[in-house]
């Protein structure tokens, strides 16, 4: 993965000094609360319901074991000994003290970590597929392009005060989209054109929140060297013309809709014509230089361990289930991709203790070349595990709670921190997730249901991505009471779709029953191996409505 050179180190150190200076001025009263707000947000620091919250950047989800260990130490020394993996591949601390934040940043900078632009109206962390570089069907490893975007967007002088936050995601797999690019402000799908040249299909104006939209394509093919100049053109058009009079209409999707995708694309093209040959245009050499950081680890020359695994599966049913659900195929023979689940029933999705962070670091060192990836489903991936070590790994992670074999099933819930932690939330989300997980604790039944995305958000801001859940749950506030609205049919993949609202909302205690009825309708109607989403698409929302509101 990427390693800082002297330039990155210098910029990171200067950033820590700058934020220390800003914090001191805020504490001394030289900056008003309003003035400090965007400065602390650009450093990931929120003031929350119970304490400040610090969102630490994990560029496109990649972490080294030393970084995990440092995170563990930071949560112990400055927080309550646990952290939270977010739905955008970042990490949050829930209880740091404001005056400690500069010291925390200094500790993080030592291991090449930071909290830059993890919040605020600026360009946020670029996200991508957690299986990048190791999956079978990818066009090219997207991470070097994410790193190029990270560098370009870091402290970009023109785009530090955009109308609203701005999120970019990159996907390079032809078959799947684990990065949900079509619900990002900019979604970049890597493609090859007819001449075999590499580039991007550019989606702009997708997003969740109050006005969920699937991002339309505004350019079918952007040559890879033109990436940054084109992004600069999109951002400039947005910076100049995005709405600033109404926070709820300020995302780029509203501008794209107002101008129409075609009109927006024309404006971008006109701007781009001026700058496409500027020095910001990438060079082959620059791309290759960054690609040099993402070379393959020293894989052993192995055969697939098919027979060994078959006999281990035969002997142990739980291992068999785990292998089926939490392990994916790898591009190299003899290797596998393992997802450690952070979704044990009874713990908030994505929460990890300091000890668990250290355990993950240990596992990474021992089984996966010292690296892990955080997923937007709030799990952690060991991307390069030898197949002949899978059984041993499974035995070790089972007691740690990382082997809940529910990946992509109904109980692998995406869930925001919700009203228990977040000042913005209208309703709690974690207890809802937990009650559903408890209701569906029969593994065989879960496996029989197949892949179902259940996504829960505690408010309109949609951090739990409820619009694109096959089943989405949104917490709403009705006269001071918490209710939950259910939507069906969403998808964040290549067939990206915004879910449809089922009807009036439900009380918290009714939610497990509501989900159970929805599942019943699916089970009654599905044909053979048909997944939930396909059944829904075939039969429509009515049968679900009838059963749930009967």
């Amino acid at each position, binding site marked *: 993965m990427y390693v800082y050179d002297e330039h990155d180190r210098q*910029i990171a150190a200067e950033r820590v000094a*700058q934020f220390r200076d800003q914090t001191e001025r805020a504490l001394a009263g030289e900056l008003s609360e309003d*003035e400090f707000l965007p*400065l602390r947000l650009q450093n990931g620091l929120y003031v929350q319901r119970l304490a400040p919250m610090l969102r630490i950047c994990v560029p496109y989800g990649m972490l080294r074991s030393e970084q995990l260990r440092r995170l563990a130490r930071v949560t112990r020394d400055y927080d309550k000994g646990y952290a939270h993996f977010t739905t955008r591949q970042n990490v949050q601390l829930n209880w740091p003290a404001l005056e400690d934040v500069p010291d925390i940043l200094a500790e993080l900078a030592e291991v090449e970590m930071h909290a830059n632009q993890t919040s605020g109206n600026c360009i946020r962390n670029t996200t991508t597929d957690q299986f990048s570089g190791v999956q079978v069907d990818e066009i090219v490893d997207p991470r070097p392009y994410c790193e190029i975007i990270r*560098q370009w967007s870091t*402290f970009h*002088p023109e785009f530090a005060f955009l109308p609203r936050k701005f999120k970019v995601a990159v996907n390079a797999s032809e078959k799947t989209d684990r990065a949900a690019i079509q619900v990002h402000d900019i979604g970049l799908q890597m493609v090859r054109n007819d001449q075999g040249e590499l580039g991007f299909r550019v989606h702009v104006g997708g997003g969740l929140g109050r006005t969920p939209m699937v991002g339309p394509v505004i350019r079918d093919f952007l040559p890879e060297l033109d990436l940054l100049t084109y992004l600069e053109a999109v951002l400039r058009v947005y910076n100049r013309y995005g709405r600033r009079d109404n926070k709820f209409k300020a995302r780029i999707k509203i501008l794209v809709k107002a101008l129409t995708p075609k009109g927006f694309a024309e404006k971008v093209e006109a701007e781009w014509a001026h700058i496409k040959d500027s020095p910001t245009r990438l060079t082959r050499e620059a791309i290759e230089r960054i690609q040099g950081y993402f070379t393959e680890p020293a894989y052993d020359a192995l055969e697939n361990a098919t027979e060994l695994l078959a006999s281990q599966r035969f002997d142990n049913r739980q291992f068999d289930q785990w292998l089926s659900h939490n392990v994916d195929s790898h591009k190299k023979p003899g290797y596998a991709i393992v997802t450690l689940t952070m979704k044990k029933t009874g713990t908030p999705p994505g929460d990890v203790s300091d000890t668990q962070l250290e355990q993950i670091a240990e596992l990474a060192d021992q089984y996966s070349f010292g690296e892990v990836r955080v997923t937007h489903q709030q799990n952690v991936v060991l991307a390069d595990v030898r197949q002949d070590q899978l059984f041993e790994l499974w035995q070790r992670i089972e007691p740690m709670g990382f082997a809940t074999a529910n990946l992509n099933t109904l109980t692998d819930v995406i869930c925001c921190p919700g009203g228990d932690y977040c000042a913005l939330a209208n309703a709690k989300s974690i207890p809802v997730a937990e009650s559903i997980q408890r209701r569906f604790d029969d593994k065989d039944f879960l496996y029989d249901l197949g892949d179902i995305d259940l996504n829960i958000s505690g408010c309109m801001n949609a951090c739990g991505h409820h619009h694109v859940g096959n089943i989405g749950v949104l917490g709403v506030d009705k006269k001071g009471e918490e209710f939950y609205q259910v939507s069906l049919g969403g998808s964040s993949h290549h067939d990206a779709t915004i879910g449809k609202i089922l009807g009036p909302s439900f009380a918290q205690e009714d939610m497990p029953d509501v989900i159970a009825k929805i599942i019943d309708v699916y089970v009654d109607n599905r044909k053979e191996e048909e997944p939930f989403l396909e059944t829904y698409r075939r039969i429509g929302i009515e049968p679900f409505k009838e059963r749930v509101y009967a």
Partner: protein
Amino acid sequence: MPEVITKDGSIKQDSWVVVPRPEDGESLNIPEQPALIPADLWLAGKEHFEGRDDIGVWFDSHDEPEILEGVVNELPLIAVNFPKFADGRGYSIARLLRERFGYQHELRAIGDVLLDQLQFMKRCGFDSYALREDKDASKAARALNFFSQGYQAATDTDVPLFRRRAS
């Protein structure tokens, strides 16, 4: 006399005044002293100002700098207003004036100009800053120099870091 911060962080005194946009029905009052008037009004009546080298213009954040394409260098000073510090349109206006229209003379940030915007303003081509009066001008030099380099090309450098690394 008002104080203005320069690009190197020093403080200079000058007497430029910002002439507000007249209300409907009112006429533009041009003072005797150096004055900045709304850019579109200057353009509409620029023959009236011939012979005065102390008339400049200002843009508000929603204005389009494109209207001055081709004539920017007739002006000794252009100011861009930041109505609120969180309004970032002025940065794009500045880059367009400098990089697209080739503006060579002084470019000033006015309005809600606070210390932590100065580094961005400098990189986008502003070379003077009318810091909001309640802010401590003695801290400007530090705020302008938090960073010794940036990743991107902008007005201050046309060599992004990826090109510097290559050499």
